[in-house]
């Protein structure tokens, strides 16, 4: 079952004294099971920080995160995470990097051969399984990192700008894939992005985060029908949402 996530009065301050950086909060947010929630905001507003706290990889300064009503006190190990910088290791091939996720979990990757193969095929990397990351373009590396994050079949996903390094065309096609995946399996997704269009297209809910210190200022429900293909994107409702969000960021002094 995909998880529900509650963020409660969460604050993060890095360091202390005059050097302290107030990176995020205080903010609260409820993410229901199977929701697709985007964290949208300019760079430096604390999106990655928030995501890492949800994952249990960073301790909040105050407040707490609850996943399925349980307070997060350490790393969550049954979720899928795509970090902002990809976590491919240079000494392993694409195949080996995907397998690494399983091996670190004590599983034998050759037992999951078929799953790895179909994952790679789903992002069109099937011809590149035995290439090393340095032989791939930035976009291909990100697709490999996607497979690495998904191979243990998590039903709660934290994605930190997963499409950041992709060209516009690949980006569009992976968005569609991601949406198809979400519609079929209904994982809970927390999706960090700074693209308004991307957030509106994919999300059931978009959280607008103010510039430093980052706070979740508005939560906008996107009630457009799925699948949101090119037709939906050129429709007046879609454009209306994008305009609305643009106007709010304009108000923050960002746009």
């Amino acid at each position: 079952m995909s998880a529900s996530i509650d963020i409660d009065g969460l604050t993060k301050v890095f360091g202390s004294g005059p050097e302290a950086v107030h990176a995020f909060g205080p903010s609260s947010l409820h993410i229901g099971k199977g929701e697709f929630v985007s964290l949208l905001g300019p760079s430096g507003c604390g999106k990655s920080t928030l995501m890492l706290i949800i994952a249990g990889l960073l301790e909040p300064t105050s407040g707490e995160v609850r996943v399925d009503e349980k307070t997060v006190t350490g790393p969550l190990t049954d979720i899928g995470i795509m970090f902002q910088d990809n976590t491919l290791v240079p000494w392993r091939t694409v195949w080996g990097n995907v397998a690494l996720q399983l091996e670190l979990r004590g599983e034998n990757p050759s037992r999951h051969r078929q799953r790895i193969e179909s994952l790679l095929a789903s992002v069109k990397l099937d011809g590149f399984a035995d290439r090393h990351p340095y032989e791939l373009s930035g976009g291909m590396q990100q697709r490999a990192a996607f497979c690495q994050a998904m191979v243990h079949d998590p039903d709660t996903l934290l994605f930190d700008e997963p499409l950041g390094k992709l060209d516009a065309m690949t980006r569009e096609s992976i968005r569609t894939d991601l949406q198809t995946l979400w519609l079929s399996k209904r994982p809970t997704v927390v999706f960090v992005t700074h693209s308004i269009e991307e957030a509106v297209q994919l999300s059931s809910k978009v959280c607008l985060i103010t510039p430093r210190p980052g706070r979740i200022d508005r939560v906008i429900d996107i009630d457009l029908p799925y699948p949101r293909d090119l037709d939906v994107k050129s429709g007046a409702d879609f454009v209306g949402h994008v305009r609305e969000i643009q106007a709010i960021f304009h108000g923050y002094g960002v746009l």
Partner: protein
Amino acid sequence: MATASSSLDRDPETSRSRRSLRFLLGGLSRSWMFLAFFVGFFIVWEISIDLFGIPKYILPKPSEIAVKSWADADRLLYYTWITGLEAVLGYIIAILLAVPLGLAIAFSRVMRQTVYPFFVSLEMTPKIAFAPLFISWLGFGLLPKIIIVILVCFFPIVLNAILAFTSLAEELERFVRSTGAGPTRAFFKVRLPAALPQCFVGFKYAAINATVGATIAEFIGSDEGLGFYIQIVTGNMRPDLAFAGIFLLTLLGLALFGIVSVVERLAIPWHISVRRKT
């Protein structure tokens, strides 16, 4: 298409060894360029001696060095073996001691706060300054020389090992934690391979120190080895033989460094410093 066919033979080992072979051959072709340069250097040396009328008790010709040292080849080769033995044994023991210690310091807070500052301050001490003491304690045999080699090799290895095992990229550290992997699994699957490139920086640095340490130790108190030989023949006004000793020491240093470089190429063919060379 090449990519399609390569995905069929998904055996990381074969492509890896093929790649290593390519690296080694690349290394050979580069050393031919070196060789050409060295030959040129000796030719200029040979000609300059006559050209400027330099007396041979100051600086002999390379050809003369070759002829004279050939006459003393037995002794030179035996001493090369002795000095090489000191350098290699000391170097290997230094690695065996320094890597575990580096690991302990990297992974233990207590060690980092006690032993580590001690080693950092010792780093400022010229280790070779201990050489006369070891000779006086342990006499003229191999043992004090090996200990001195260990001493001069130890620090670069420890310090680089500490750096290597404490500088895993933050995202990788987080990735490992998010999988719930235990310390042993995390070590062998991620921390160790990620640390190897920085470890080899220390190994290579130490390989250079090894022959230097052995030579100086022999200068201070010895009755065999190339350092001993160079000192004796220089005292006898035989710079030709001294040069022969220096030449053999150079070969020894090159051989040791070369072996470590080959091992590096085999161990981390994926690393940018290795890939960039071909």
